[in-house]
């Protein structure tokens, strides 16, 4: 899945690079708040763990096997910010030390495999564990769904980027179908292995599972004076849902808006360029100025794009509102139950 050089055009590579850098910068700050002076050694060891675990090939179906991406797993085990850092460092090391993944594609790789998997995985996980009653089962089930969803979403993000700035003239629907299909399967494997891994850590060292911090019982100290309960309640996981939801929402709106705006002419655009210019067609021509207008000449291109962009934003907005409504309904019901 490590994207090499030349797969995406320059503007998308640069944009993804800027996005990845901003994401990593935010996470550096947040992780430091979570782990303070332990950040470097802990995140380093977890990164080494992720690197090792990515080499675990798991059988998906007869004849095919997948390997773990690990973003969701890391997010549940050590928290989303540290997770993004760990996976980003793994990708940097793979790019610079093992020539795995193009140097110009680092931004894309970090965006897809570190930021999207960790953030999506964590958001899904928190939605489920907040809605469900506090229990180990909920944490394990949440891990499964979170990881299973994070993989196809990452594949979908790949497809989106490919739509905007891919260098190959392939039908986006075909890419989406192929990537989606395979990655739904791989996602199931990722979900299964993530859930079981989280479950086995929960069984031995529940205190190490960041996402299960709510499960901790209050501590008791046995001193010379007898047993003294520790008053402070078990800490809820920091790095709560709100910043992630707000951030994720913004990203989704931005992507949907920008993608719809620019991509409206794109898929058939390449086709058009190829037909018009024959061998002189270059992928660099995907800059805004060169977008083929012919297809939409009658409808009025700018309006078309604008309306698609608006539609994209509206679509995301609607989804968020609907999802939020369901989520709050479930939570309210839980709360009513708890109060009763």
């Amino acid at each position, binding site marked *: 899945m490590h994207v090499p050089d030349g797969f995406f055009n320059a503007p998308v590579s640069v944009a993804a690079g800027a996005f990845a850098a901003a994401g990593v910068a935010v996470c550096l700050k947040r992780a430091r708040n979570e782990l303070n002076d332990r950040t470097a050694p802990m995140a380093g060891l977890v990164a080494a763990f992720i690197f090792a675990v990515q080499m675990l090939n798991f059988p*998906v179906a007869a004849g095919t096997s997948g390997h773990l991406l690990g973003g969701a797993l890391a997010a549940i085990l050590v928290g989303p910010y540290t997770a993004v850092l760990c996976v980003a460092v793994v990708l940097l090391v793979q790019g610079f030390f093992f020539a795995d993944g193009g140097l110009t594609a680092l931004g894309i790789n970090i965006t897809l495999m570190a930021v999207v998997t960790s953030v999506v995985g964590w958001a899904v996980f928190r939605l489920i564990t907040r809605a469900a009653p506090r229990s180990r089962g909920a944490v394990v089930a949440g891990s499964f769904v979170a990881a299973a969803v994070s993989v196809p979403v990452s594949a979908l993000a790949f497809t989106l980027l490919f739509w905007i700035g891919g260098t190959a003239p392939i039908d986006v629907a075909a890419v989406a179908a192929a990537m989606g299909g395979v990655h739904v399967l791989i996602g199931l494997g990722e979900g299964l292995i993530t859930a079981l891994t989280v479950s086995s850590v929960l069984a031995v060292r529940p205190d190490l599972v960041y996402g299960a911090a709510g499960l901790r019982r209050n501590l008791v100290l046995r001193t010379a004076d007898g047993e003294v309960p520790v008053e402070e309640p078990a800490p809820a996981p920091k790095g709560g849902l709100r910043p992630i939801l707000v951030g994720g929402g913004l990203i989704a709106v931005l992507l949907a808006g920008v993608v719809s705006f620019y991509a409206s002419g794109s898929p058939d655009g*390449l086709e058009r360029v190829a037909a018009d210019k024959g061998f002189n067609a270059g992928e660099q021509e995907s800059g805004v100025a060169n977008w083929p207008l012919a297809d939409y000449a009658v409808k009025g291109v700018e309006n078309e794009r604008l309306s698609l962009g608006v539609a994209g934003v509206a679509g995301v907005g609607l989804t968020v509102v609907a999802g939020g409504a369901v989520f709050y309904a479930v939570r309210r019901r839980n709360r009513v139950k708890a109060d009763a």
Partner: protein
Amino acid sequence: MSAGHHHQLYRPGDTVVHRLPPQCKLLAAAGFAVAVVATPRESFWAFAAYAVMLAAVAAAGRVPPGFVLRRMVIEVPFVLFAVAIPIIGLGERVEVLGVSLSVEGLWAGWNILAKATLGVVASILLAATTEPRMMLLGAQRLRLPQLLVQIAMFMLRYMDVIMDEMRRMRVARESRGFVARDVRQIPVLAKSAGALFIRSYERGERVHLAMLSRGYTGEMPIIRDMSASLRQWGAAGLLPGLAAATAVLSWSLT
């Protein structure tokens, strides 16, 4: 004891390329990759020129061709993809040996293949001639966030230790007749992964304690810093400089 270096790309040596300060090499490799990616795909001659430049670097760094070729397997999945593009690509089609191929797809496939290959070879040469810890010093010198460099440092230090632990677990599994054949074996693998996480995390805690015991207060002391002379920058700038010139020329010719 520590046998986990099969994947390491570094080839010790004492050549001009090896001796260049790491920060220069990092920027040179990145600059080269950018120039390659920015080159129009019709400029076959430009890609040939890039290949010659890399060959020159490989020769100067005494990196044998076989070494580079063997490491290039890493891009195989994307080569397969590149080969598939002309077949599934859209647009005008052309018959080649009785197979209908997309013209645009052929261009795209070639574009990906050429750029990815040049990028991979540049990365391989960088990794082959730069010791991992030097690479970190270079990154530090280039003002990459301290914390990120440190995380990478700890990761590199403990990667082999953890891979060894994983290998021992696999030996333990397999010596009891376990083979990962289908989905039913996933729980066993996941248990190993869980155990590996706990070991990694606990080692992280112990390392942190070891650091505290030696006066660590959250800031890593900078023990080695390397500056590069203007001449060294000049030498390292040769590759991206030539590549950039080639890219510009290829644009003005098309």
